[in-house]
């Protein structure tokens, strides 16, 4: 499944594609929203590891504009709830993730992103 928590980790790994290979760009996506249990302590522990700009951009590609461009210093409840929704409740079920650098396309089908490469593409 591709939630944005996973998308924030994935990078293109085609042979020789080492720069600008993150984040992958969503295209032609179908999304589903599923409620998840709110866990502010998890979010606070996880936040330092996020690539913030990539998350905000991806959320906007999926139509969610609730996150501020800069990570806020004060983590109030409203912000944490928005972060929770963006990271954990938006599911990309179908679509394509494209590398900005080499244009390789990683398909998402039935909620599963396919990061497999052909033998000649493996670095």
């Amino acid at each position: 499944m591709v939630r944005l928590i996973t998308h924030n980790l994935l990078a293109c790994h085609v042979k020789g594609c080492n720069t600008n290979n993150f984040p992958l760009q969503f295209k032609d996506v179908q999304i589903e929203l599923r409620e998840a249990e709110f866990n502010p302590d998890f979010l606070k522990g996880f936040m330092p590891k996020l690539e913030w700009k990539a998350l905000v951009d991806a959320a906007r590609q999926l139509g969610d504009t609730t996150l501020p461009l800069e990570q806020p210093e004060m983590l109030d409840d409203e912000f944490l709830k928005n972060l929770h929704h963006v990271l954990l409740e938006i599911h990309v079920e179908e679509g394509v993730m494209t590398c900005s650098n080499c244009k390789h396309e990683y398909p998402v089908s039935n909620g599963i992103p396919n990061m497999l490469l052909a033998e000649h593409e493996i670095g």
Partner: protein
Amino acid sequence: MAPQVQATSIDGEPQVYEEKNVHAIYDEIAPHFSSTRYKPWPIIAAFISSLPIGWIGLDSGTGNGKYLPLPFDRPGAICTIGLDRSRNLLNIAKNAGNTGKIRDVVLGDILGRGWRVAAFDYAISIATIHHLATHERRKTAVKRLIEAVSPNHGRVLIYVWAIEQDALSKRTIPVDGATGTRGQDVVVPWVLSRQDKGSQASTEPQVLNRYYHMFAKGELSGLVQDAASELGLQLGPPLGLGEAPISISRGVEMVQDGWERSNYYVELRCWELP
């Protein structure tokens, strides 16, 4: 009598061999396999329970995803992402735990690197690396796990099948080629009964032979040693600022190196000088 474990040798390209003798078989036996693999092993459960809240991890070779819902006493405290080559197993792993919660899974190869460098806090690889057909590929798999986690605090747990089987195990292991720290290549039969295959009219149960490299004592820790050295990492406990030679700034410590229930396992902790 059940079909026996048999010694084997790899022919042809390892990737092609693995495709036929590992990946294709898991895709075929996925539902039946999954129904026999539901109990988390204690050392793995303890490892996962010890992880701090907010950590994110990779389960490389997640299979039916049985470790994805852990820890049961703190659901949602950490997030484990499951990676596997079998789409049919991932379709099962997505719903691991049967709680109605959907798990994060990715179709990919354990030798790939489809993520940001050091994106994870922890990685586990349980009963997976033993399906790789050469020593070189098994070493690369260990390197990929170390590269996947934070150089500063990353933790890794690896489990593989051992030649030394538990007394309770009914398997007899042929050890013709195994000497010293070299393991043994074998095929392990999986009998698909007609029930598993639906209403097909075949009379004989189908036997599918899965490839395994059974590890010898010391072989797994040897792989870690080689992987660490190729990654330029000091193997051992964290060095203090003054004690380390100029050339050393990062390392990996093997905090556990043991055998449990027919498996060898190692736990690694990465460290980095400030």
